[in-house]
């Protein structure tokens, strides 16, 4: 249905817009003091102030917009205080003095109220800030950030704002995006041609929300009355639905891969330790925890010594965590485990004791709180890739890390003399000893390698999990599950088992819930091991 009020408003706005070109000074109807008062008022007034600004955004002069943007930014960051007369902008929250919003004069803050935004107010303020950034941002990046906010709440933004932004935009890519958005905003336009164009524009950037918007149009009277509209909607809808399905499929794949990479990282070290020496190392989870703490140490060192390179600490932590934890592993092996090789039950108890010791050592020396990590841009946030499929950087980091670990570990095992020794000892310890291999030294190095891999897992997990002394205990059961399923002593088996368990979990979870998924996977593993106790890939060996 046509909306005469809306078109009238559009016409008035268009006239104002023309008027702005003709006599710029006549458009200065924006009341700065009233705006400041609105933002300092109660929740309803704040929403009104922000929404009025958005409505008038198509015609307001740039300096008024910039003024409003400063106030809105200060309000969102709690730098706006509200004394009885006007509003003060602070440089930081809680500063002793601030600039008067209207006159910019510096005034002391005297017991002024700093409003806290509720959710409704926050949404309105966010949209208004997005509009201001889109219209007045000095560079394409700022305007693009504003646009992405406006895009999420396009229903509340008048067409005049988008038109103005499109006309003023100099960056070709942004201009096209804004044009597409403006086109999509015309879904309820009275003009059938514009409406069909809007459907196509909505379908061009598919997502679950776009699907919902288009599905809602099916109950529109035009759907039965106008065959062209019907065809356009059906085509658009099938396109969006297909894209959303593909996006969801990609998400499942990505989630499975990411879970598998975590499982693999946690289990890789164990595959070597358990596989080579048959040592049931219950301290493996704590080795992961130590790797994470080593990463924290590297971060703190960077903060003190090279604050400029702080973003690179995760990369620098890779060798440090590997070597530090490998050293701990070698010490544990030399002090404890080498005395217990002939008594596997004792080594199980001893490594459990080591794990308790390490947890409490860290708790006493560092504390039990979650550690505060700085997350560089390459491991925080994500990017929407296709439809609703978002690639999160921290998970991608873990996947890449796990892939690199697989390759490097396989290279070490297959292509180096140490790897040859390790394989020889794994396959037949006595024969290897007879042929003159120093099996004790090989054991120690292998244990160091396995512990070092756990340290690497600690680095990879920092951006994903909370780091505290107890974090390791969560990994130990899963990693034994992966190693046993994969076949003791086979790194490739561990990889395949991790992929299988990760994938199965992610596939079952949406159907039956996370609790049942865990149970089903566990039952599946038990049944599999009943039939094939040696696991997926068994290494042939003589005892």
């Amino acid at each position: 249905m046509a909306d005469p009020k809306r078109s009238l408003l559009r016409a008035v706005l268009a006239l104002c817009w023309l008027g702005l070109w003709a006599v710029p000074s006549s458009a200065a109807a924006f009341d700065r003091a009233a705006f400041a008062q609105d933002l300092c008022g109660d929740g309803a007034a704040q929403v009104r102030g922000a929404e009025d600004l958005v409505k008038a955004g198509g015609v307001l002069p740039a300096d008024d917009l910039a003024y409003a943007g400063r106030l809105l930014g200060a309000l969102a960051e709690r730098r706006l205080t509200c004394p009885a007369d006007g509003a003060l902008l602070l440089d930081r929250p809680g500063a002793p003095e601030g600039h008067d919003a209207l006159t910019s004069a510096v005034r002391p803050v005297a017991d002024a109220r700093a409003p806290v935004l509720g959710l409704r107010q926050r949404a309105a303020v966010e949209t208004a800030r997005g509009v201001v950034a889109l219209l007045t941002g000095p560079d394409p990046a700022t305007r693009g950030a504003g646009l992405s906010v406006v895009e999420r709440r396009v229903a509340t933004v008048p067409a005049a704002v988008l038109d103005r932004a499109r006309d003023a935009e100099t960056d070709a890519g942004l201009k096209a995006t804004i044009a597409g958005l403006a086109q999509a905003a015309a879904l309820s336009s009275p003009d059938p041609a514009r409406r069909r164009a809007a459907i196509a524009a909505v379908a061009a950037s598919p997502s679950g929300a776009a699907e919902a918007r288009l599905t809602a149009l099916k109950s529109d009277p035009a759907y039965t009355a106008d065959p062209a509209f019907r065809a356009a909607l059906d085509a658009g809808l099938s396109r969006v639905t297909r894209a959303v399905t593909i996006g969801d499929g990609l998400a499942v794949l990505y989630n499975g891969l990411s879970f598998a990479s975590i499982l693999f990282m946690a289990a890789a070290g164990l595959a070597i330790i358990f596989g080579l020496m048959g040592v049931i190392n219950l301290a493996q989870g704590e080795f992961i925890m130590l790797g994470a703490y080593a990463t924290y140490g590297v971060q703190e060192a960077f903060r003190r010594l090279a604050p400029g390179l702080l973003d690179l600490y995760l990369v620098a932590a890779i060798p440090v965590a590997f070597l530090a934890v490998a050293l701990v592993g070698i010490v544990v092996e030399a002090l404890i485990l080498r005395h217990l090789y002939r008594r596997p039950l004792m080594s199980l108890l001893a490594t459990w004791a080591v794990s308790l010791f390490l947890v409490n050592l860290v708790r006493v020396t560092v504390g039990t709180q979650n550690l505060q990590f700085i997350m560089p841009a390459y491991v925080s946030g994500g990017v929407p890739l296709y439809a609703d499929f978002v690639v999160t950087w921290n998970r991608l980091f873990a996947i890449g890390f796990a892939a690199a670990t697989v390759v490097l570990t396989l290279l070490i095992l297959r292509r180096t003399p140490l790897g040859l020794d390790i394989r020889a000892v794994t396959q037949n310890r006595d024969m290897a000893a007879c042929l003159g291999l120093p099996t004790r030294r090989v054991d120690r190095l292998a244990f160091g390698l396995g512990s070092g891999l756990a340290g690497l897992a600690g680095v990879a997990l920092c951006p994903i999990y909370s780091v505290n002394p107890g974090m390791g205990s969560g990994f130990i059961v899963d990693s034994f599950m992966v190693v046993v399923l994969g076949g003791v002593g086979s790194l490739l088996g561990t990889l395949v088992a991790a992929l299988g368990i990760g994938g199965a979990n992610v596939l079952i979870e949406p159907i039956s819930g996370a609790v049942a998924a865990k149970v089903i996977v566990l039952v599946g593993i038990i049944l599999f091991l009943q039939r094939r106790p040696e696991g997926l890939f068994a290494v042939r060996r003589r005892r």
Partner: protein
Amino acid sequence: MTHLTRRSFVGTAALLAAPALIRPSFAADTVKLGCLFSSSGTMANLEGRLNHVVRMAADELNGRGGVNGRQIEVVTSDPASDWPLYAQVGRQMLQQDKVAALFGCWTSVSRKSVLPVVEQNDGLLFYPLHFEGDENSKNVVYMNSPPASSVLPAVDYLMGQDGVGAKRFFMIGSDYVWPRTINKQLKGYWKSKGIPESAWREEYVPFGFSNFQTLVNQVRSFASQPGGQAIVVLTVVGSSIPDFLREFANQGISATDVPILGLDMVEADLEGLDTGKLVGHLNCWAYLQAAKGERNQKFLADWAAYVKAKNVPFSADTVIDPMVSAYDSVHLWALAAAKAGSFAVPEVRKAFAGLSFDDPSGYTLTMTGENNYVSRGVFIGSVNEKRGFDVLWQSPNAPKPVPFSPYG
């Protein structure tokens, strides 16, 4: 270096492994209070703080000459986040150490496991967490609010015009009694408001679960369906909370798109997170660190001084509701014991009627004698950039607690 024989090593290892369950100390003319808070396992980071705050409150009382002329001695333990162990340690404390009262438990499942023990031994357990209600034992003092005076006001706020006018609800919880009961009551509440069953979804995860990608994907697609604004009611506990928040922020969903009401979310859960992208998510408690007033300032300063003086391994500038509730518990117990002039549980219990205590939240805690519930204020907090909560709304007074929910 001395040579380490195999035998001596195994001995040492065994010593290290043996968990020191209870660390008692002996002195005459003291009265003992027992703590049931874990310092290991998944709850350690949260519960561990409460041991120290009970000690701090006891030190305060001892500084004023103790209670009924006796000094207070605090006995701590480590039930290791292992629910049946809470009952075992609780029994040991009541029967062997003869503690006058127990202060403990975080999760409802641990409280439920201690419940028969305190009832059989006629002990007294002060429970400092807000919880699902639907329980009324004469042996448990419920220091924090049942849902009617914590969860429902917060959900009402989100459904109202001040909030976001929420119409649809995605409930995610850890799989145990507290989340399931809370969600059952919420569903009953929504039904009573005429909200159809299709407007909510319910998902549970195991304890310590951390792989929230699939669930966050589901939240996103739930929120994009028509039918009105969606919110997440989060009842996961322990380390699952920061892991969920991190995934939520990384996938680019902000509080203005889909707000999270984190019912067990406290300041300590935000440690280690970049809260810039989490600003605006909500929680509800009977105390927030940002509460105004001199009593709160004094408590914060006292805690910071205590952490420094005793070298406590927790943050000096993070204070959470259960800490304040545990602190209040000790003071309420002391008031009741002083009023009764005795430490015997039946006498102390009789003295609860009409007690009041001005606690750091700024409200006055009161007990009626009708039941062992305590009237507390209600705060709704909003996550800020500085890993804390701003007070978004607070109740004008402390509402009378309703133990049994009419909705579930």
